[in-house]
């Protein structure tokens, strides 16, 4: 039956040619490893976020007077509403975590180097956008946590000279966080950012198709890959393994492992994305004693506290992030094996340790 359907489609739209070009004939490096499947895992996570987000929108009301009650209704009255909401909340955290892992593997395997600078830049932009969509979604439940986290987050922009106060008012839609802020953030969260993220993912995949997949620097003699081409050249892998079925099965294995971890959090650690303030309705007249951001913003949060002025803290972070974003244009050495780049490896490990230390410090402070 399936064969007949395939034949029927092939005769009309040439499915066989597409399968040959994009699946069975799409060859990948023989030494490709599991880390390369994180991109596929991220695509699945994003799709799940979109689906759960759409389902939540059926009952969620983006109105300051009704938002909290509508989320409570979803969690308690809607059949499997708790599951959909938990999947969405846990998924947003997992998306950031897997995205960081994906970027770290790219960093350590030197896959950001020429000719893949734009792949890195689009990936870095996606990290910023994913953090942006997480932040805007944070306000949606209109809880004490949402309200006050958004108040201090938007307030940080006031440290920017000259335009800071105007920017804060623009973000909030008024002097203070209130109903107009919820409208703005919800529009960004549900309409603008998903479309922008989907477009940047499209650009990221397009760039991947045009440059070809980079070969891992492990398990071979020459690990330096100088980029000296005078004209466009697709980096193919003759004699490599086909994407389908070989690597598609690796993708499926990685996606299954991801789901095992994800579901374990959803069912056995459902409080992971929340603090007690997340279940108290927003009260502009009652400031909680300690407002902590999500784990992936803790290092930023602590950095702002270390420096005597908020502007200095913001500037240091801007410099660090700009350096990271421009890395492929700064690090031009062709060597890609991390063990043959001791200075780079030391810097990466030091950077990771610093980030972890700042995050732990931010959590405990």
């Amino acid at each position: 039956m399936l064969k007949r359907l395939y034949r029927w489609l092939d005769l009309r739209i040439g499915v066989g040619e597409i399968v040959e070009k994009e699946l069975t004939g799409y060859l990948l490096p023989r030494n490709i490893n599991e880390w390369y499947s994180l991109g596929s895992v991220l695509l699945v996570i994003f799709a799940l976020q979109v689906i759960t987000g759409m389902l939540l929108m059926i009952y969620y009301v983006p109105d300051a007077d009704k938002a909290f009650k509508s989320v409570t209704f979803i969690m308690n009255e809607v059949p499997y509403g708790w599951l959909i909401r938990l999947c969405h909340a846990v998924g947003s955290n997992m998306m950031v975590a897997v995205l960081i892992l994906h970027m770290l593997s790219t960093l350590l395997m030197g896959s950001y180097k020429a000719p893949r600078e734009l792949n890195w830049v689009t990936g870095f932009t996606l990290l910023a956008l994913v953090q942006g969509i997480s932040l805007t979604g944070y306000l949606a439940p209109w809880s004490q946590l949402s309200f006050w986290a958004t108040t201090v987050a938007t307030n940080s922009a006031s440290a920017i000279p000259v335009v800071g106060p105007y920017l804060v008012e623009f973000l909030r839609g008024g002097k203070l966080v209130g109903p107009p802020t919820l409208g703005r953030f919800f529009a960004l969260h549900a309409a603008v950012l998903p479309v922008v993220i989907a477009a940047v993912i499209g650009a990221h995949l397009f760039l991947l198709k045009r440059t070809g997949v980079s070969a891992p620097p492990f398990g071979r003699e020459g690990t330096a890959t100088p980029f000296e081409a005078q004209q466009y050249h697709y980096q193919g892998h003759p004699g490599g393994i086909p994407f389908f079925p070989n690597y598609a099965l690796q993708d499926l294995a990685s996606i299954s492992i991801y789901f095992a971890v994800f579901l374990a959090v959803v069912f056995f650690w459902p409080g992971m994305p929340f603090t007690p303030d997340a279940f108290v309705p927003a009260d502009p007249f009652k400031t909680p004693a300690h407002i902590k951001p999500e784990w992936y913003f803790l290092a930023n949060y602590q950095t702002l506290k270390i420096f005597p002025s908020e502007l200095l803290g913001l500037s240091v972070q801007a410099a660090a992030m700009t350096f990271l974003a421009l890395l492929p244009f700064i690090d031009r050495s062709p060597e890609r094996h991390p063990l043959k780049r001791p200075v780079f490896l030391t810097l990466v490990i030091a950077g990771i340790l610093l980030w972890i230390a700042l995050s732990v410090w931010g959590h405990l402070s």
Partner: protein
Amino acid sequence: MIRKNTLAILLLASLAFLKPALAAPVEQPETVCIQCHGTLPDRLGAPVKLWRSSIHADNGISCNGCHGGDPKDAANAMTPQRGFLGAPKEKDIPGFCGRCHPGVYKDYLSSAHGRALGAGGPTCVTCHGNHQVVKASLALINEKSCTRCHSFDRARAIRDAMQQTEGYIDDISRRIADFQVSGVDTEKMGKSLFSVRNRFHTLFHDVDVARVKGESAAINKELGKLDAALKEIEQSHQKRRVAGGIAVGFMVLLALLFHLMKKSYD
């Protein structure tokens, strides 16, 4: 040109990354009463030390909550013009506390303790303390405290009748709080418990043993309904965990299956 544009995009991306960073947490400022008396020695500073471990301090009720005055203006904090009341005389203490605890005040006045006010009977601070005000609990009904004025026999009978109910209330309160921080709608149950707890607290100033026993039994019945509702939620959460365990196990098996299939192609 392309490089300049790329640089601009990167700078914007890094700014977007920075936007969500949060500022330092907001701390509640102390009142001028605490700031000044907290540094004073002996009689003038002692109330602050006692207050710090009180139920009032835990709930953000500072000196001005009882004594009046202006907690923001050190120079005029203790002037009658700013509503400063000072310390009440002994017979005025129940009325002083009763401004915020009117229900308890009413219960106290109708009890044997209240009827003896001004004639050697106890006031609120006799049992609850004045600055180190302790939470109303059965621990306050103890031999050491009660035998200051009378024998402990009747007080013991009342405490024993209420002991089980208090434990029941504490247990249900803890379970509701646990569910509340996991997204369960506990509003109705919380209100119901609040009402039951208030009813229970009216017994604290009652010295009629038979009435205390009868009321405690009726309250236990109400608590039983809440207990049943909570057990139902607990069972549904247990079912969720079983389903979650099966789903996680299935995913692990699926991962193993795909891994083995991939190996067969290598």
